[in-house]
C-alpha cells in the first residue's frame, strides 16, 4: 500500500516549534522508507502519527486509499505492523501467545492462528517446536527481537512501522538481523517506515531515505543519490565525511566488474562490497583484482581507477 503524508503537522501543547512541520511525503507500495535525523527532528513522531499513537494536529495521512486520520485508531493498528526498540513482548504470555496477539484481536480461528504462528517463527529463523511454548524471559536479546518482528508480521499487515528495531541488540547481532529482515520484508513486499539514527542502517535498509531536521523534510532520495549529492551542508555533515566510501559499500563487487583480469592473479570474492575491495587493494598495494563468482569462476575485474571514477561520479540508479 502506498503511504502518503500531506501537509502533516504536529504541535505539542506548550512547545512553540511544531514537532512535525507541514510534512509532505510519499512512499510507494513495497518500498522501505527510512526516516533519519538528529534527536528531536520529528522522525519518531511522524511514524507514530501513521498509526495514530500520536494524533496529527493537521494534515492528512493516506494509507492505501484510506485517510487514517478519519479511521478508528484501534481497528487501524490491527492492520499495521508495529515494532519498537525495546520490543515490548508480553512477559506473562508464551511466545506463541505473543505472536498470536493481532490474529486473536482480529478473531481468527485457533487452527489458523496456530499454523500462522509456526510459519512466522520459521520465517524469523526460530524453531517453533522449541520456542512456541517458552516465555520471553528465556530468550536472548536477538531472539526476542526476532519474535517481535514475527509478532508484527503475524496478521500479514501491508504496512510496517519500525522504530529503531535493532537498537537494543549488540552490534554483531544487529548486522545479521538487518540482513535477514531486509530479505524478509522484500520477499513479502511490505511497505515499511523505519526510524533510525544510524546512517549506515539507513543506507543499507532503505529504498528511500528521508532526512529530517526540526520537523521538516530536508532531503528525500535513494541512499546512493543522498550520498552522492547531499542537498546542503547539514545533510553532508549528517551522512558523514566518508560518504564516498559509504556509497561504495552499497555496491557489490560482482555487480560492478569490467571485463578482464588482474595481471598478477590477485582475486577477491564477488560478494564483497566495493568498499571492501578498495580496502583490500590498498592493503595489498595493488591496482586491480580479479573478481570471482560463487563457483570461484572469474567474473571480471575491478581496478583502482574504476573505483576512483565511480566514487567521483554522480549518483547512479
Amino acid at each position, binding site marked *: 500500500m502506498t503511504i502518503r503524508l500531506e501537509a502533516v503537522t504536529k504541535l505539542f501543547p506548550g512547545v512553540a516549534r511544531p514537532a512535525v512541520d507541514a510534512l509532505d511525503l510519499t512512499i510507494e507500495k513495497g518500498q522501505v522508507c527510512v526516516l533519519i535525523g538528529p534527536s528531536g527532528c520529528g522522525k519518531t513522531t511522524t511514524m507514530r502519527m501513521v*498509526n495514530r*499513537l500520536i494524533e496529527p494536529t493537521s494534515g492528512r495521512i493516506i494509507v492505501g486509499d484510506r485517510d487514517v486520520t478519519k479511521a478508528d485508531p*484501534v*481497528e*487501524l*493498528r*490491527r*492492520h499495521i505492523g*508495529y515494532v*519498537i526498540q*525495546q*520490543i*515490548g*513482548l*508480553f*512477559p*506473562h504470555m508464551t511466545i506463541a501467545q505473543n505472536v498470536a*496477539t*493481532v490474529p486473536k*484481536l482480529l478473531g481468527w480461528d485457533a487452527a489458523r492462528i496456530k499454523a500462522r504462528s509456526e510459519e512466522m517463527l520459521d520465517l524469523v529463523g526460530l524453531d517453533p517446536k522449541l520456542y512456541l511454548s517458552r*516465555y*520471553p*524471559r*528465556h530468550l536472548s536479546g536477538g531472539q526476542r527481537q526476532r519474535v517481535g518482528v514475527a*509478532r*508484527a508480521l503475524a496478521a500479514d499487515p501491508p504496512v510496517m*512501522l519500525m522504530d529503531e528495531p535493532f537498537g537494543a541488540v549488540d552490534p554483531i547481532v544487529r548486522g545479521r538481523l538487518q540482513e535477514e529482515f531486509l530479505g524478509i520484508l522484500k520477499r513479502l513486499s511490505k511497505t515499511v517506515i523505519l526510524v533510525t539514527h544510524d546512517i549506515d542502517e539507513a543506507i543499507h535498509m532503505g529504498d528511500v531515505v528521508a532526512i529530517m531536521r526540526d520537523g521538516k523534510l530536508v532531503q528525500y532520495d535513494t541512499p546512493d543519490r543522498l550520498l552522492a549529492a547531499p542537498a546542503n551542508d547539514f545533510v553532508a555533515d549528517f551522512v558523514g565525511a566518508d560518504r564516498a566510501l559509504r556509497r561504495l559499500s552499497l555496491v557489490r563487487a560482482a555487480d560492478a566488474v569490467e571485463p578482464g583480469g588482474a595481471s598478477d592473479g590477485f582475486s577477491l570474492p564477488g560478494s564483497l562490497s566495493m568498499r571492501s575491495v578498495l580496502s583490500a587493494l590498498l592493503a595489498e598495494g595493488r591496482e586491480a583484482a580479479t573478481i570471482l563468482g560463487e563457483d570461484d569462476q572469474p567474473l571480471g575485474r575491478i581496478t583502482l581507477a574504476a573505483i576512483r571514477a565511480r566514487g567521483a561520479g554522480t549518483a547512479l540508479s
Partner: protein
Amino acid sequence: MTWAIENYDRLLLALWEHIQLVGVGLLIALVIGVPLGVLSARRPRFALVVLLVSGALYTVPALAIFALLIPYLGLGFWPAIVALVAYALLIIIRNVATGLREISPDILDAANGMGYGNWRLLFAIELPLALPVIIAGVRIAVVTQVSVATVAAFINAGGLGDIIFQGITQDFGEKVVVGAVATSALAIFCDESLRRVENWMRANQAEYI
C-alpha cells in the same frame, strides 16, 4: 487442652465464622477496591483523595470503628463486614494503582500499537501484569482482616475472637490461649500461602531471569 479436644466442633465453627468474615470482607473490598485502584492509576488527583480517605479509615483503631458503627448499623455479621471492608480498602486500592503504574511503558506502547482497545488492554495486559503487586496487597489486607475480625466478636459477629472473649469473661485460661493461638495460626497460614502465590506469580512474569 481438654476443653479444646472436647469442643473442637465449637472451635471449628468459630474458625469457619472467622473465615467467612475475612472472605466476604475481602471479596467486597476487591469489588470496590480494584475499580477504584484502576481509576487512581489513571487520575493522580482522584488517587490523592481516595488514598487520603482510606488512609484515615485504616488508622482508626478497629474497636473504635466497630463502636462507632453500632448506633447506625447495630451488631452482628454485616456491620462487622462494613468495618472489615473499610480496613482492606486502602491497601487494595494502593496496590492496584501501584501495580498498574509500575508496568513497563514499552509493553503498553507495543500493546497499544498493535491495536488493543482500552478494555482489552486492561484485562489482558495491565491487570495480569499488576497481579503480583495486587496479591501482595491482598496478603497484607487478609492479615489485617484476620486481626480485625478477631475484635469483631465484640459486636457479636462471631469468629475466633468469641472464644477469646468467652475465655476472658469466664476466667477460663485455656479458651483464651486456644483462641489466641488459633487466630495467630490462621493469620500465619494465610500470610505464608499468599506469599507463595505472590512469589510464584513474580517468577512467572519476570521479564528477565
